[in-house]
């Protein structure tokens, strides 16, 4: 698989799995109003994943759904951060906040990169991300003094670093005010324990009738 396809899959897998995790909050978010807003974020992430899979599908001569659902767990290239099962609000918002910061750094680099097609898609994603960032910042500000939230951010920080290529990590550290040097990043490659179960659940229906339309 060429480097471009690998990169596209890393990006797409991050968005798909984070979107999948965020969609777990449907119906059980802290308030009904927040439930509706949070669901839009999850859908947007899946939408971004779909657009990225479609680019990768051209490279790999397949289709977006096959890439999203038909690979084995070890073929996915998502960062461990997005795989973690974090069904409590403090950790969920901490992850959203850190992921949006990391993603912003990554998107900026893609927009300035040589790959015109990917730069164009990154710009589109960036415009939608404006609202995700507003949302994350709103909650981060509201929960700023809440120990649960601060502890969650610290706990997830090594995972957040692992979302980015090493050369981009200092930028992220500068933005969130945490340290790169004294932190051991949790790198891509080895999946979190929770991923196998996630993959099972995500692919259950599809595997029940392989090759069929749904």
């Amino acid at each position, binding site marked *: 698989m060429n480097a471009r396809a690998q990169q596209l899959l890393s990006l797409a897998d991050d968005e798909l799995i984070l979107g*999948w995790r965020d*969609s*777990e909050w*449907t*119906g*059980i*978010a*802290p*308030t*009904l*109003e927040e*439930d*509706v807003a949070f*669901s*839009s974020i*999850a*859908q947007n992430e*899946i*939408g971004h*994943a*779909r657009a990225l*899979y479609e680019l990768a599908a051209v490279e790999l001569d397949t289709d*977006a*759904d096959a890439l*999203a*659902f038909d690979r084995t767990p070890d073929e996915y290239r998502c960062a461990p951060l997005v795989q973690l099962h974090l069904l*409590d*609000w403090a950790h969920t918002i901490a992850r959203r906040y850190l992921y949006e910061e990391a993603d912003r750094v990554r998107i900026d680099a893609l927009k300035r990169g040589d790959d015109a097609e990917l730069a164009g898609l990154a710009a589109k994603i960036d415009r939608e991300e404006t609202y995700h960032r507003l949302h994350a910042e709103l909650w981060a500000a*509201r*929960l700023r003094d*809440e120990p*649960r939230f601060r502890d969650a951010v610290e706990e997830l920080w090594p995972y957040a670093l692992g979302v980015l290529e090493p050369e981009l990590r200092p930028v992220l550290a500068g933005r969130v005010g945490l340290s790169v040097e004294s932190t051991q990043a949790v790198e891509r490659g080895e999946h979190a324990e929770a991923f196998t179960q996630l993959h099972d*659940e*995500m692919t*259950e*229906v*599809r595997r*029940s*009738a392989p090759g*069929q*339309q*749904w």
Partner: protein
Amino acid sequence: MDARTQEFLAYVQDGGQVEATDWLPDEYRQKLIKFIEMHANSELMGVLPEREWILKAPTLQRKLALTAKVQDEVGHAQLIYRIAEDLGKPRDAMFADLISGKAKFHNVFHYPTKTWGDVGVIAWLVDAAAIISQKALLKCSYAPYARIMKKICWEESFHILHGRDVILAMMTGSDVQRELVQEALNRWWGPLMQFHGNPISREEDPMYVWRIKSQGNEEARQQFLEGYVPQIWELGLTVPDPNLRRTDDGVWEYSEPDWAELKSVVTGHGPRSQDRLAFRARFLEQEKWVRDSLLAA
């Protein structure tokens, strides 16, 4: 009934509507809150059976559509609870009554979902049954409620289309997939026939008397059968009721629904009633600190 209440009753029976700031007879206000609360509870509890299938959706398109559909239902719950709050019942009190069983939610949301076939049947037929009731509420005597029904009905229109699309994909798919649809239909038919409630006459139904509902239960059920049995039959699916038929007068005949089952289920004895309420209670409790922090200055 005192004169002022009598006048109010005549007014609403004549098609009149009232607002949140109008004088409302106590009996009307109580019945209204109860009705609206059950509707809101149903939208909220209806999320749970469908939620697990968002996670298992077999294509990106289906995942997006199902997430959007369920998001709409949460949105409907928000709209409807707000109406009840403005009538004087706080949201927390409504959640507490839902969890304790004091307040009810519709029968269909007490049953398990077992396969992707259920996903299609729910979006196509359960939502269709609900829309019939919801369209009738567009004429509710309580205007704030009638007005939000417009947004609700508009959003529901995509749900049915999505449901039909899911069903059609399976009915034109493999034998395994076709069987999923038939099997799901076999399980959902009973609850669907009970959904609109037992056929008491309109005049005996307090909700109709006060024009909160503008349609009797049997009227709604007949509309459902008239609209959807032909759609079911044209796909080659069978309805598990040998007595189901349309007479020459256009009236649908069917086997008597199990009213005892309906009563048992809505009073919290359905197959999934208690664990779904427990699931909801668990997250309400777990995230209480978040709501507290939202209330803080």
